[in-house]
């Protein structure tokens, strides 16, 4: 029924080598408490997997439910333009309880973004990209956040470090040793 999520593209936010045997895509919302819970877990997963993992974050802001989600995503995209996406991503998840405009402006300063860049982000400069992430996710079967995909397949298992690492290793193993 589903199209599958879009393949990794040049404007995706990627951590880890492009030839890693396994890719983990997260569809997330900076204000979603479950994404906040998953954040340290996914950090530990990346630590554990090292260069065998490519991690990708895509926007899936639920803006009617989370009033700050859109602007947080806009800030992260502005940061990406300035080459500091991951510091922004981490800062947002580490400060989930303070994502109001003033706090976002403060994070922008800490990230070294100039105010004009932030104003333009808030005015919608990156909304096309955010929207594309969202629609690609919807078409690929994302039904809430966080949604995780391992080598393109939806991961439905428990969201703890051991389970996710086991699933990633399993998937990586299958890539490395295709069934005869």
């Amino acid at each position, binding site marked *: 029924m*589903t*199209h599958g999520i879009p393949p990794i593209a040049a404007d995706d936010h990627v951590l880890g080598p492009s030839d890693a045997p396994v890719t983990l895509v997260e569809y997330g919302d900076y204000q979603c408490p479950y994404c906040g819970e998953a954040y340290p877990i996914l950090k530990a997963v990346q630590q554990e997997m090292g260069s065998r993992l490519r991690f990708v974050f895509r926007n899936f802001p*639920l803006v*009617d*439910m989370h009033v700050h989600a859109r602007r947080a995503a806009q800030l992260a995209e502005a940061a990406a333009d300035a080459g500091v996406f991951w510091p922004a991503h981490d800062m947002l998840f580490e400060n989930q309880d303070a994502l109001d405009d003033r706090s976002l402006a403060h994070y922008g300063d800490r990230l070294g973004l100039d105010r004009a860049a932030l104003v333009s982000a808030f005015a919608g400069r990156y909304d096309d990209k955010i929207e594309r992430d969202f*629609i690609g996710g*919807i*078409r690929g079967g*994302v*039904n809430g956040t966080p949604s995780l995909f391992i080598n393109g397949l939806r991961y439905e298992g428990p969201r703890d470090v051991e389970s996710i690492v086991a699933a990633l290793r399993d998937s990586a193993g299958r890539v490395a040793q295709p069934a005869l």
Partner: protein
Amino acid sequence: MAEQMAPAPGAHLPPGTRAPDFTLPATPDQRLSLAEMRGHPVILAFYPADWSPVCGDEVSLFNEVLPEFHRFGAQLVGISTDGVWCHAAFAAERKLHFPLLADFEPKGEVARRYGVYRAAEGVADRALFVIDAEGVIRWSYVSPLGINPGADGILEALEQLSPQTHAEGAAA
């Protein structure tokens, strides 16, 4: 008529069936009928209950995807056996931009007509119907109660319904 019997699981109306008409309260003083929506695709999203966690996720998700449904000219309505005041509070809290219809009296009658009433629990199944502009069901899906079905199936059905509309919408 089949209406009198609790439908067996999997007895939901299949594609090709004319969608049974209904008129249900959308607010304490307004009613909405399927016939009024003729001329556009309609998405009926039956769900078990306001406020339950999965339903909340499902309606909130559909709420966010609404602009995409509208690109196909489609209207979305939610239906559960909750009453109008419950719907009003739920819709306000979740900032929903689509109507929730109260299949409250006679309880679950519309869900029964669509074959998605769970008599044992007294609630509607988590079921989706995509109805074309002429009032014919073109796609239907019943999800396990605890699983949010997402919106990809609906979008695919809408796409197949009117590739042209979609292309125009995309170009606009």
